[in-house]
């Protein structure tokens, strides 16, 4: 079991605050996602958990024990680095064996674990090659195998499948989710792809310049974002943030009204105009101009509107999100 907790952790590099008073607890066996725009501190959080960096203030607890004075080797956590960090002078097999050899695991056991990891990641046929001879996707598999081969208390993965193209990435994330279930270990997973984060995570944390803005299950964050910032990061196409007067039924005290594209209701009428139509197969995305503001609507099925067409828009008040002057969610 491994429960990993941050208590008010701050990490600075010179003048940049990479992690700013972060507090969260990752439960044992949880698939926990760190999500946020570039340079928001995702990698730094992983490095702090590994013990490669020490916090300037605050405390990190693993299974309720402070780990400030525990070195990276003793923490028994496996990591897939953002740049993979394979050993270029070793073959794929030597790379994967490395963690076990260094821990003096008997040869018979190493063989068994190696075969197991290679089978799981389908890399049996490339074990004799050096990293330079592998494709990007194969390298990622080798890096993941190197982490999976031993039995750590937790896995950390820093955007491990970003080098794959979209379709392979979809397959890979399903597979990763399965691997994590089978291993029965905590997995802290970094990604910059909101869809990936939402599809795999049990819970996710949204980061903003080193600060944690919201933690929760993906669907909960999607449905009840606590700020305009969080609302904007999740969902594709992104949420529409509109001035309050635009949609009938919006609260008057809101500074911004958020409405997801799939919640925008469109019918023939007046008050708005279609400026763009993107047919995407199962659904259609309309770009709409209304009172100088631009918004997008996502409709089921084939396009029923043409550019230039005059329409009326609306939304159910319970689907609207109301944000105050600081972007905070207004209490209902």
């Amino acid at each position, binding site marked *: 079991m491994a429960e990993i907790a941050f208590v008010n952790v701050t990490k600075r590099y010179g003048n940049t605050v990479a992690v700013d008073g972060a507090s969260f607890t990752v439960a044992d066996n949880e698939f926990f996602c760190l999500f946020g725009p570039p340079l928001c501190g995702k990698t730094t959080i992983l490095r702090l958990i*590994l013990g*490669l960096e020490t916090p300037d203030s605050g405390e990190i607890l693993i299974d309720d024990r402070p780990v400030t004075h525990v070195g*990276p*080797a003793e*923490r028994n*956590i*496996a*990591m897939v*680095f*953002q*740049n*993979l*960090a*394979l*050993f*270029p*002078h070793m073959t794929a097999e030597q790379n994967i064996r*490395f*963690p076990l050899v*260094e*821990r003096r695991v008997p040869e018979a056991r190493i063989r068994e674990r190696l075969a197991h990891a290679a089978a799981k990641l389908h890399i049996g046929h490339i074990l004799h090659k*050096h*990293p*330079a*001879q*592998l494709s*990007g996707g194969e*390298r*990622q598999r080798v890096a993941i195998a*190197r982490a999976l081969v031993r039995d750590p208390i937790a896995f950390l993965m820093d955007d491990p499948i*970003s*080098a794959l193209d979209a379709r392979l990435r979809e397959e890979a994330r399903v597979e990763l989710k399965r691997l994590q279930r089978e291993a029965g270990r905590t997995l802290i997973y970094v990604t910059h792809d909101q869809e990936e984060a939402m599809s795999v995570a049990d819970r996710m944390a949204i980061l903003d310049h080193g600060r944690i803005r919201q933690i929760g299950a993906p669907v909960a964050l999607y449905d009840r974002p606590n700020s305009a910032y969080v609302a904007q990061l999740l969902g594709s196409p992104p949420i529409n943030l509109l001035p309050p007067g635009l949609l009938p039924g919006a609260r008057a005290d809101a500074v911004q009204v958020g409405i997801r594209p799939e919640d925008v209701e469109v019918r023939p009428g007046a008050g708005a105009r279609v400026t763009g139509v993107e047919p995407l197969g199962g659904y259609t995305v309309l770009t709409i101009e209304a009172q100088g503001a631009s918004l997008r609507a996502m409709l089921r099925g084939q396009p029923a509107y043409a550019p230039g067409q005059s329409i009326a828009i609306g939304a159910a008040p319970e689907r609207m999100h109301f944000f105050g002057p600081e972007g905070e969610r207004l209490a209902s």
Partner: protein
Amino acid sequence: MTRSPLIELLRYAAILLAVAITLVPILWMVSIAFKPVAEWQAAGADLTWIPRDPTLENFRYLFGRSDSALIVALERTATRPILASILAASFGTLIAMTAGTAAAYGLSRFGAGANLPLALIQLRLFPPMAVMIPVMIMWAFLSLMDTWWGLALIYGIVTLPFAFWLMKTFFDDMPREIEEAALVEGCTRLRVFLKVTLPMMRAPLASATLFVFILNWSDYLVALLLTTRQWATIPVYMASLSSSMTGQLYGAKAALGLIAAVPPVILGILIQRHLVRGLTFGALKQ
């Protein structure tokens, strides 16, 4: 893009000229090395590229095996100077590379000794000759005069900045995550260095070693000041190759020059394999 024939012609002419400037002295040395006394002596000089009567006499002469009546036998053979050069240059290179690599690693990874780079540049700001007089006095005090180890020590000190700077750039370019991966996987710092860093640094180490060795190998002035008879190196010994009867012994000098070119060439061939290897190619994404 096609260049005009004239430009093409000029280009080849320029290349030819550069090659000639580089090769002519070397070829001339090779030629003389195999000429008998009569052919290389100033008196009998009619210049030919190919020796009319090629001989190994010059080489034999260097090692005291000559039976020629034309020149006086050498007082000292070339054996010891060759040994002196090999010892001083090799151990000097070893000192510079060991200390330089360690310093570069410490600075690159842990920021230890942040003023070191400047201090080492300062060591190169003036010619080594400027400090040779104090060094001579010190070396005399330490009984290091005219010893190969004394020479190796000063070689190590003089070439240390080169070793340091070369290795520092290589260490700086190596992504820290590779070492950190080993650290996370259970290695101690020392094991990370031995099992990951050093093997990855083979190519840079090889090229830096070759560079430093050639610097040490070709030194003349330092050895001239710090050695006299016992451990004179090849260049110092070469300068003494003359006799009152025949003047400069060009044949023997050329032969010795040819011998002196062998170690760097062998070293170069040995490590060439590593020189072409990329540093971290394949370790990272993309």
